[in-house]
């Protein structure tokens, strides 16, 4: 009887654990692009090579100190090249990553992105410093904390 009760307890606990697990996107993932104040003044529009549609590229928020944009990345290859339009020039920023397609008990099938196994994380024609941080799109969601963050790119000086 003790084992039976313990079994139900495990099932109940597992149910709670599963409900608090963020399984990430079930489609094209997005990255967060942060532009520091100096860069924000120059970049007016963002697009990407091989994009079938520009509608997913959100406009920057000029009201905040940091301009942020949520940008989709390609699942068809291990890199995405963003086009950064300024007044008189277009710069490119190519982000490299490794796609992970797999399944796990908490989620079933999922997609995740991680840092490339070899080579640089990015390539750019920008003059400003670029910083790329990789973090999984999946993970346990703490009641107090944020969801898993995914990839973040920061352009510009502090």
């Amino acid at each position, binding site marked *: 009887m003790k*084992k*039976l009760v*313990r*079994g*139900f307890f*495990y*099932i109940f606990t597992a149910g709670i654990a599963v409900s608090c697990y963020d399984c990430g996107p*079930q*489609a*094209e993932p997005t990255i967060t692009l942060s532009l520091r104040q100096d860069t924000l003044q120059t970049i007016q529009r963002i697009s*990407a090579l*091989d*994009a*079938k*549609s520009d509608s*997913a590229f959100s406009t920057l928020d000029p009201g905040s100190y940091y301009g942020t944009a949520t940008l*989709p*990345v*390609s*699942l*068809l290859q291990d890199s*995405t090249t963003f086009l950064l339009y300024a007044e008189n020039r277009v710069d490119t920023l190519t982000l490299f990553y490794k796609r992970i*397609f797999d*399944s*796990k*008990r908490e989620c*079933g*099938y999922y*997609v995740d992105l991680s840092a490339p196994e070899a080579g640089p994380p990015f390539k750019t024609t920008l003059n400003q410093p670029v910083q790329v941080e990789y973090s999984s799109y999946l993970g346990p969601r703490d009641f107090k904390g944020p969801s898993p963050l995914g990839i973040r790119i920061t352009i510009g000086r502090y």
Partner: protein
Amino acid sequence: MQSTFLSAFVLSVFLVGSVIGQTVTVDSLSENRAGSVSGKEHTFGIDVFKNIPYLFFANKVPLDERRMLLTNRGIVELTWRRQKRERSYQTALLGYSQVEVVSPKSVERRQNATGFYAKLGKEWSVGKGKAQSQLGLRAMMTYCRYSTELLYPGPTFGDYKSLDVVHNIGIGIDPYYALDFSLNQQWLLRWETRLAHHYRIAGKGYTPYYPGVGFSPGLYNYIISPGTTLQIHYRFHGRKAE
């Protein structure tokens, strides 16, 4: 996980035990079977029911609030029983099963499962005098190939499509209760109800339908599934008339 497995096993034995209590009074269905001990019989049987309910739905059964469609399901099961003692039998079952699981709004757009399974065990006649009520326990081994068409929508750069093939191997136990109805001296109709417990020892991914076990949505390595069916058996060494 071992504790969960054991707990579920205890629960199933408990459930089967409660079924035994309901069956003692059904003995009048084949009284002439009382003389069966004069010759040790063995029977070959085939499942005649598992495909029938699906045919009523044109083999397309909506499940999980219509988010999932079970289609093209087919099952072939052959069984064999050999009498060991007056009230006990050895049993064996070989099966093949295939099914397609279609989920139009999920990443797993289409899953094609095919599998083979073998079950070996023993059964005992229960009840007083008349011996058509059987309680059995089979050990099972399964192989199941799950081929999953994946589609991750890509509205900006294009959809990502791939095919994921997983080979699963599992073991389990299959406690069951069966009622035998003698149709004549050669033919026997068996109504069998079981509660399969199955643990995957190789493979991964969710298996909404597992060959040899049944429909088991939401369960992962350890799955449990009830089922009931009809089998027709032919006696090769039938009982002798008294």
